[in-house]
């Protein structure tokens, strides 16, 4: 069922229920009230009649006159009077008036009583005159109330019908108004395909849920677009990266095989081929590792890792890889309590990530001093690596996590563009954060935040 119809039905059901309860209440309370009122009138008439018939038999004329002048005649008004003695046969009297005996009994026991037969109402009182007890019963048709009630009923039914019509129109209008922005968004999103991913939804002027929805869509499109572009970049970069060593292997082999060579020449060309093949192997290995550390749901074995120890280990490793590097470790703000230094993680992976980052810092700063510093906040450990190297151009900062992406100012440095995405994957596995702040030709600071492991000492 369409949501528009759902809204209409829902509004209709709610409104009609309300109207029905409302008018039903009005109808019943008014009719109850008018019945009670009519019985009261009948009782007064019974009292008058009793007085006329039993007490003032001598001068009835004047009272009758008074009665006919001031009390209007009710439809089919009839009076019944009979004496109550222990010998009176109540059933017989009751059948004379055509009322049940219980009604008469009620009058005798309570002093008053009411009874309704069809449209005729009976009210009776017990009356004492000259030491004798009488039952005085007056009956009449309730012309006014029945007509008023009927009129009220007609009015209410008409009003309900009219209001149903009105509610129907109103809820159609409301639902249309609610649905309209959704339809606009749907129409706009339909136009967006993989060819025109740069299209975005226009944001409504009000900052409501629909603006939120549109914004969420736009965010999603941003991510989609980025990942599409990353994918495209990745394929082209990867094929380029693999192609270069392959081309030189093939070219070398081709040239060598074109004529017979001396022993030394064969050795030389095979050495070059081997070097290129090793490069290729390294790239494939790195790529494999990147894929393994990506989010693939495989559980990694996590253990207690001391970050200060890790940094010292990384320094040793980097000293081996880049013997000319100058790494300065700044433990000025090292927290005093050792539990603030422990994270839950895989030491090999963290070591690899940090080695990549520090290695990059050394490489791209041409072995100028690199500072590694450490600090702990309430729930995180912050490791910062600072270099004074070539930096990253502002525009390229958003692509640095793309595999195989290399910034435009890194042409004279060797590298594959895998280290940083790998490091980020590893930090992400550890629910950490990596931020890179850089200014071109001034240096780069990498800030890694790892959640504390909550190990007690």
């Amino acid at each position, binding site marked *: 069922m369409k949501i528009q119809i759902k809204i209409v039905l829902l509004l209709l059901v709610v409104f009609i229920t309300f109207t029905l309860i409302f008018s039903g209440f009005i109808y019943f309370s008014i009719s109850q009230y008018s019945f009670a009122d009519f019985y009261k009138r009948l009782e007064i008439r019974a009292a008058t009649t009793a007085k006329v018939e039993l007490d003032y038999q001598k001068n009835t004329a004047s009272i009758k006159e008074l009665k006919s002048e001031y009390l209007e005649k009710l439809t089919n008004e009839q009076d019944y009077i009979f004496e109550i003695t222990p010998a009176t046969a109540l059933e017989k009297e009751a059948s004379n008036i055509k009322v049940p005996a219980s009604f008469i009994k009620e009058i005798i026991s309570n002093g008053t009583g009411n009874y309704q037969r069809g449209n005729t109402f009976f009210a009776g009182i017990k009356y004492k005159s000259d030491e004798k007890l009488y039952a005085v019963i007056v009956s009449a048709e309730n012309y006014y109330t029945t007509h008023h009630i009927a009129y009220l009923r007609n009015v209410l039914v008409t009003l309900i019908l009219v209001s149903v019509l009105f509610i129907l129109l109103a809820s159609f209008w409301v639902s249309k108004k609610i649905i309209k922005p959704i339809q606009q968004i749907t129409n706009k999103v339909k136009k967006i395909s993989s060819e025109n991913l740069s299209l975005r939804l226009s944001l409504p002027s009000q900052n409501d849920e629909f603006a939120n929805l549109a914004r969420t869509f736009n965010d999603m499109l941003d991510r989609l677009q980025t990942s599409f572009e990353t994918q495209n970049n990745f394929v082209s970069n990867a094929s380029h990266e693999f192609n270069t060593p392959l081309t030189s292997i093939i070219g070398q082999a081709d040239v060598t095989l074109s004529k017979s060579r001396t022993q030394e020449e064969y050795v030389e060309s095979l050495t070059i081929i081997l070097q290129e093949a090793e490069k290729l192997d390294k790239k494939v290995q790195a790529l494999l590792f990147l894929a393994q550390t990506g989010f693939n749901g495989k559980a990694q074995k996590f253990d207690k890792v001391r970050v200060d120890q890790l940094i010292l280990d990384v320094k040793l490793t980097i000293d081996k890889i880049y013997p000319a590097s100058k790494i300065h470790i*700044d433990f*000025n*703000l*090292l*927290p*005093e*309590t050792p539990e*603030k230094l422990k994270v839950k993680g895989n030491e090999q992976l963290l070591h690899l990530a940090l080695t990549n980052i520090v290695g990059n810092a050394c490489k791209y700063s041409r072995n100028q001093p690199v*500072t590694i*510093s*450490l*600090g*702990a*906040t*309430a729930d*995180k450990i*912050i490791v*910062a690596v*600072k270099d004074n190297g070539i*930096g990253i151009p502002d525009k390229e900062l958003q692509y640095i996590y793309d595999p195989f992406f290399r910034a435009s100012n890194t042409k004279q440095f060797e590298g594959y563009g895998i280290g940083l995405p790998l490091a980020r994957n590893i930090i992400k596995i550890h629910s950490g954060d990596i*931020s890179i*702040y*850089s*200014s071109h030709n*001034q*240096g*780069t*600071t990498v*800030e890694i935040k790892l959640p504390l492991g909550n190990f007690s000492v």
Partner: protein
Amino acid sequence: MGENIIVPIDFTVESLFTVKKFLQHNPETECNLLLVHGYRMPLSITELLFFSKAAQLRKLAGNEFEEAVTILKNKYAQKRVTICIDLFLGYNQASFQNFIAGYTITQAAIPKSYRLKTAGGNGFDIMKFIKRSDLKITEFDWTISVGVPEKNHVSELLFDL
């Protein structure tokens, strides 16, 4: 309990260098550091009615600043150094004297060459009040970072230039 020391800050990470330098120069001290920035109370009656110092502090101190403060707290966790942040809401020297009397402050650690900024629309620098007061003032200097990439991030505190 150690001495109470006032440190003017402007809610940037760099202004915390005064604290860092102070603690480096006095490694064995026991002290309570009170980081203070001036704040002019709003003038409208409704803003005054709903004014809350805690909320204002939360607004002024960003995430990075608070993280940097916790780094300092963790560094000196076992040395009985406490660090608190407060706003000075007065207007003149007399109210500043009251402020330091209320906290029983005896010393001030201030930056030498770093110029404090004004945080938010109503903030102001309390350096002139500190300099005019009779507190024992110690100045700390560091290389002012200009255009470092990690400006205003936690890592700024981690490096000495």
